[in-house]
């Protein structure tokens, strides 16, 4: 029943593979004007001093509630937005300083699969044009017929048929659209794919199909995923390791089974306690976390979770805990652990 031991105590300590992507002290702050006449005074810390690695071939799950910065993180890693501070290295090279030309080359290697299959495709374009767009940009010498053949192959790879090439996005259901978006995402044969809530908008029966498809593609194309989701069940199923975010900061990083079986950070414990066990016979009391998520505008001085933490003391409120790497491959940011 506990499949976790394999990962946690196997020969190679978890997370000691080859680092594909590393972030160090990555921050994205927005200046926000709080009143109409006032100066741009407040600072919104969307993500704040994130440091972590993504290993080649793994799926790093990123989980957290609204305002935790998980979507911002994905966009920064792919340089769809610039970080305020910090470094990102991809295959050992610092990519934050990349100019436009090198950035363009980089995008071949890193792709983004979006949350909402309804807005992530241009409604005025056919499926053919949508899938061909990355190929036009990066494979200019490829003949059109060759590109079309490739587009058909990609569609078959994601479980659609070639004959949908001439159709438009609105002719498809949410799950089928998400397949097209995935086909576009893998068209350039990337190494690293950020999946941002890719199954959240889908029906349960279709969600499972897309999760399986992503797992299948990962095996076949040796992909590395950063898998962002608010859904702990999905995270549990797809991830090798999980990073828990709260108010833009890392609370805990751990191998998936360790995290779910032995959560260390009080926030992780509260999260796991809050979700349903899905078993009507054992309706144990959910752990009810008091209070609400504070606005990231008025982030607390100490530990961001201190305002809701059942274990918090004065030190938690005043001093920010450090991300402490531990021997077992876990990272926890808490004074109490």
């Amino acid at each position, binding site marked *: *029943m506990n*499949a*976790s031991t394999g990962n946690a105590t196997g020969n190679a300590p978890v997370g000691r593979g080859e680092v594909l992507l590393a972030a160090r002290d990555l921050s994205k702050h927005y200046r926000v004007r709080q009143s109409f006449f006032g100066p741009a005074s407040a600072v919104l810390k969307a993500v704040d001093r994130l440091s972590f690695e993504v290993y080649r071939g793994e799926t790093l799950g990123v989980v957290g*509630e*609204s305002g935790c910065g998980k979507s911002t993180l994905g966009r920064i890693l792919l340089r769809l937005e610039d970080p305020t501070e910090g470094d990102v290295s991809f295959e050992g090279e610092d990519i934050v300083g990349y100019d436009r030309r090198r950035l363009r080359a980089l995008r071949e290697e890193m792709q983004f699969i979006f949350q909402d299959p309804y807005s992530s495709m241009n409604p005025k374009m056919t499926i053919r044009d949508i899938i061909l767009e990355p190929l036009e940009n990066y494979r200019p010498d490829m003949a059109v017929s060759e590109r079309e053949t490739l587009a058909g192959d990609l569609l078959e790879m994601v479980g659609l048929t070639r004959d949908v090439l001439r159709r438009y996005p609105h002719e498809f*259901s*949410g*799950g*089928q659209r998400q397949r097209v978006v995935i086909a576009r995402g893998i068209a350039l044969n990337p190494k690293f794919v950020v999946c941002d809530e890719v199954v959240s908008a889908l*029906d*349960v*029966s*279709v*969600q*499972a*199909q897309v*999760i*399986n498809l992503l*797992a*299948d593609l990962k095996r076949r194309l040796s992909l590395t995923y950063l898998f962002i989701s*608010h*859904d*702990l*069940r*999905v995270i*549990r*199923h797809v991830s090798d390791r999980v990073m828990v975010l709260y108010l833009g900061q890392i609370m805990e990083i751990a191998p*998936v*089974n360790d995290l*779910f079986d032995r959560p260390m950070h009080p926030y992780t414990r*509260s*999260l796991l*306690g*809050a*979700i*349903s*066990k*899905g*078993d*009507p*016979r054992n*309706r144990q009391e*959910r*752990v*009810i*976390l008091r209070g*609400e*998520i504070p606005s990231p505008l008025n982030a607390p001085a100490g530990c961001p979770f201190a305002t809701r933490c059942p274990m918090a003391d004065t030190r938690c409120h005043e001093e920010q805990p450090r991300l402490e790497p531990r021997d077992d491959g876990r990272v926890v940011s808490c004074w109490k652990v």
Partner: protein
Amino acid sequence: MPLTRNSKGVTTVSEILRVSGLTVEFSTEDGTFSAIEDVGFGLEQGKTLAIVGESGSGKSVTSLAIMQLLAENGRITAGEIVLDGENLLDLPPNDIQHRILGQQISMIFQEPMTALNPILTVGDQITEVLLEHQGIAKKAAYERAIEVLREVGIPSPEKRIRQYPHELSGGMRQRVMIAMGLVSEPKVMIADEPTTALDVTIEAQILDLLDRLKREFGTSILFVTHDLNVVADIADDVIVMYAGQIVERGSVLDVFEQPKHPYTQGLLGAMPSLTGVEGDLPTIPGVVPSIANRPSGCRFHNRCPFAHPRCTAEAPAVYRVGGQDVRCHLFDPHRSEESQ
């Protein structure tokens, strides 16, 4: 145990709401489609009945039809909605407006930001139903509103009552919605995906609140959701809908532990588990049919692993199996063996 099933349509004593044969049609520029067909169930006093289904299942149309809030092109073409002995479909619209909605049945919506009026204070919105229809004095109404806000767990309600929706967080807004639904002590509360837009820790708070209301005030709740996990936690009885029909109905324990309909089985199997099972998830192949493309015969036959020729040709009847009602040919007692 009072009966939940009542084939003759007689209202049993404990049933506060009985819906039978409910059919809703929508006319669009592409023709007329029935969104739901022959939907029937009973909601018992002080119980929570969950309607669960995917998009296009008709679960929301069912709740909107009961509230008489269907869009303009929607029409109830058959059926009865009996609330406490009164068929709502026989009542004049005026009566429904003044005596039923918001008073005997109230509704909580998914997105409290759009369901609350941004230019009215929390207090104005909660007291509206009291002032408009119950002729209660303003002062008394506000006192009642404060009381209800406290009941739904809003801290310092005296202060909150003067605030506007945008000043509240998502969880607080949903609590205000619930307070609005609760203020006139309705017999039935319909909650349409009330936690879908909320974060997990806030969802837990709201579900806990609804459960407490049910126990303390005996409110009967019709809970519409796509999320089976929420159903497992909050429901007493469950209706599973697919493509406009009820495919399975039973107590939450029966449905979760011995699901009968292949669709229910598929849905429960497709949920990723929290205990971390390796490998691929079981899936239901194909897509949820749109309202215009529902297959003939059994509507699930093109996705069903047990489908046989009869399923394509003939719409199944509802059979009583164990504790459940199931719409599936597999449970026809007179079924010939060749189809097995």
